[in-house]
């Protein structure tokens, strides 16, 4: 289905992940963050999102969680404080990455 994100119609899946990573921009990210109850995208949020985005564009996959922690300097619990749904279902969604595989 399509919803309004960042002022444009964007196709999302049943869990709210955008279908086409190419339509992502900062405005889309801010609206995706609202769906994750993140009302204020701070510098720390952007640090995580931009790293995920950069890694995905380079390797076409999301980084391992430990790598995300090491590269951003955040502990695991700090990532969850920023994105309560976690790095996979929360941060990756806001960064416009595809939905991760799995059942958690």
């Amino acid at each position, binding site marked *: 289905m399509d919803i309004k994100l960042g002022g444009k119609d964007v196709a999302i899946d049943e869990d709210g992940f955008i279908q086409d990573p190419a339509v992502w921009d900062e405005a889309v990210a801010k609206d995706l963050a609202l769906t994750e109850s993140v009302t204020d995208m701070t510098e720390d949020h952007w640090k995580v999102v931009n790293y995920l985005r950069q890694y995905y564009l380079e390797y076409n996959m999301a980084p391992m969680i430990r790598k995300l922690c090491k590269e951003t300097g955040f502990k695991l619990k700090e990532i969850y404080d920023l994105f309560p749904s976690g790095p996979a279902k929360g941060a990756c969604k806001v960064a416009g990455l595809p939905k991760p595989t*799995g*059942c958690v």
Partner: protein
Amino acid sequence: MDLIRIRRREGLAFDITVRERTLSCDMSVSDGGQGDGFAPVELFAGSLGACIAMVVQGWCDACGHGGDVGVDVALELVPDPTRIGAIIADIELPASVPADRCDAVRRVVEHCVIQQTLKQPPALDLEVSVGS
């Protein structure tokens, strides 16, 4: 070791009972359950985290390092077949533990039974029968 019984409550929700104590297990709504309990993989990770926490707390207490140990655990699932591909655990020590003891704590964690079990997977002996 006491018998651990897993019995259906409803839907995908099951109760795990041992020594008259019960844990609820269920899948999230998006995964077909009612979200009325821990997902099996969460129990798995929680078991590892609790084991690590207990072992490290015991070491801290024995060494006179007062305060509480905390452990945060996250999982990464990988496909084909879907399984746990990585477990990430952050161990937070009491402030009274000198920073140069972190390597010692890593060695202490080796005493965690769950961790050792992951390193040397046990035999899994399944038998299937039809209930009466």
